[in-house]
Each structure stands twice: as structure tokens, then as C-alpha cells.
């Protein structure tokens, strides 16, 4: 990934948090990686495609239920979590292990999503 990307400082900051295995900025529509800072164990294109699909479905579900937009989405798995927050077509995706401090990470994720360019 290019170090000149405007997303890299935010992604590096997120990935430095304890328990975070990687952070990605993903296009919700296309399901492709725009930028990512991930450990080698994280398959960024695969995570991007599936997480974007999940986020899109969640957004459509919330809209269908009359709840408005999705602010934050978290999937808890046996080995960790996927945390997502978006703005327009961009979604910030975090891949974490089980050691992560969810509260602080959620604040950081929402802040990063809010700072995404419109």
C-alpha cells in the first residue's frame, strides 16, 4: 500500500491498539480494499469482500426496519472480532483477537470513520 495515502496514519493508529490484527478501509459497494494495515495472517482482500457484504446487508436491514443508518457493527467470533463503522461508501474494518479492549477501540473506530472524506 502507498504510504502517501490519507488513510494510512489512521489505520496505523488503529492497528497499534492492543489485540488489533489489522485495519482496512473498504469500498462498501465494490467490496475491495482501498487501504489496509494488516498483519500477514490477515487475508485483506477476503476480509474486505465479506465484511463489506456484511456491512451492506446490515445497513439494508436497519433501513428496512426503519432504524436509519448503521453507526457501528460488531461480529463476535470464537477467536476475535470484526468491528465496522462507515461513512458514505467507505467502511473501516478492524480485525481483532480476543485480547482487545472493545470500549476504547469502538471510540477510536467511530472517530476514524467520522474523519473519512465525504
Amino acid at each position, binding site marked *: 500500500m502507498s504510504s502517501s495515502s490519507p488513510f494510512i496514519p489512521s489505520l496505523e493508529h488503529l492497528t497499534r491498539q492492543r489485540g488489533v490484527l489489522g485495519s482496512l478501509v*473498504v469500498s462498501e459497494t*465494490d467490496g*475491495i480494499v482501498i487501504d489496509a494495515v494488516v498483519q500477514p495472517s490477515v487475508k485483506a*482482500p*477476503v476480509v*474486505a*469482500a465479506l465484511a463489506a*457484504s456484511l456491512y451492506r446487508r446490515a445497513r439494508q436491514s436497519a433501513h428496512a426496519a426503519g432504524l436509519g443508518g448503521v453507526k457501528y457493527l460488531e461480529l463476535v467470533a470464537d477467536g476475535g472480532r470484526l468491528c465496522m463503522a462507515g461513512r458514505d461508501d467507505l467502511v473501516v474494518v478492524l480485525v481483532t483477537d480476543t485480547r482487545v479492549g472493545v470500549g476504547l477501540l469502538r471510540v477510536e473506530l467511530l472517530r476514524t470513520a467520522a474523519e473519512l472524506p465525504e
Partner: protein
Amino acid sequence: MSLAVVERWVEAPLRRFVEDAQAVLALLLTPSGQVLAQHGFTRAVDVMSACALAAAIHASSTELGRQLQGRPFAGLHHAGRRRQLFLARADTPRGPYVFLTVFDQASSLGLVQLYYDEFTARLGDAAPPKANDTTEILAENFESELDRNLKLLFSR
């Protein structure tokens, strides 16, 4: 699901791709334009046109890739307003094939690329070895082979 195949070994990998990627249309053909399998088409004439166009686009983009970067492009994506197209080569022990798929908002380019990689792996595993007596399709029997395959696809 409106899926039809000329050769049985193609069916399971293609069916899985269509289900996973939620593709609207899918077409597997030889680089010369002979159809092997299709999903979503209702008329033989549309399959014939799509095969001819896909083979021509694949040949052009392959050569363009060679000219620009010394090797063929891995895939081609065209985004329309409501539907998108993905065209790529699928290598198998039986030889190279061309894969064309069309998808809409129910899927995404990332999902299609992800499941295309799985599709090519499954296709490679399912492909029988190339028979020694397999004859290349020549210009003089191309049309009769194409007619035969189209009849197979749309006669069921």
C-alpha cells in the same frame, strides 16, 4: 437455477460460484468461443453472441496486457450503472478457458473476485486430464461444434 453444461465436470464448480457470488449471468467458454456452460441465459442466440464477444475481448485484452506489461491481464472488470461484468481466464489441466460473469447490487466486485479464485481452483480439481486424441477445433468445424453445444445447453 437456469444452469446448463456441455461437460458434466463443469457443473458443480459453476453452480457453487453462481450461488456464492449471486451472479446474474455466468458463461464458461474456450478461448476460441465454444461454450461449455452457462447460467442465466434464456436464448441460444444470446449465448452465441456473448461467447463471440467474450472471446474477442479476451483475445484483445490478453494481447494488450502482453504489449503493456509483458504478460496478459489477469482479469477485466466493467462497471455499468446497474450491472457489472467480470471477464477472466481460467486455467485447468484440460487447457485454458474464459469465464464471463455479470452481477448486480446483490454482489460486489470483491465477492466475485473472491469466489472466482475458488471457482478456478475447483474447476482445476474437477477437470479430467486432456485426452491425447483431442482435436483442436478448426475453422471448418467451429460452427457445427457451436451448434451442437448450444443444442445441448438449451434442449433440457
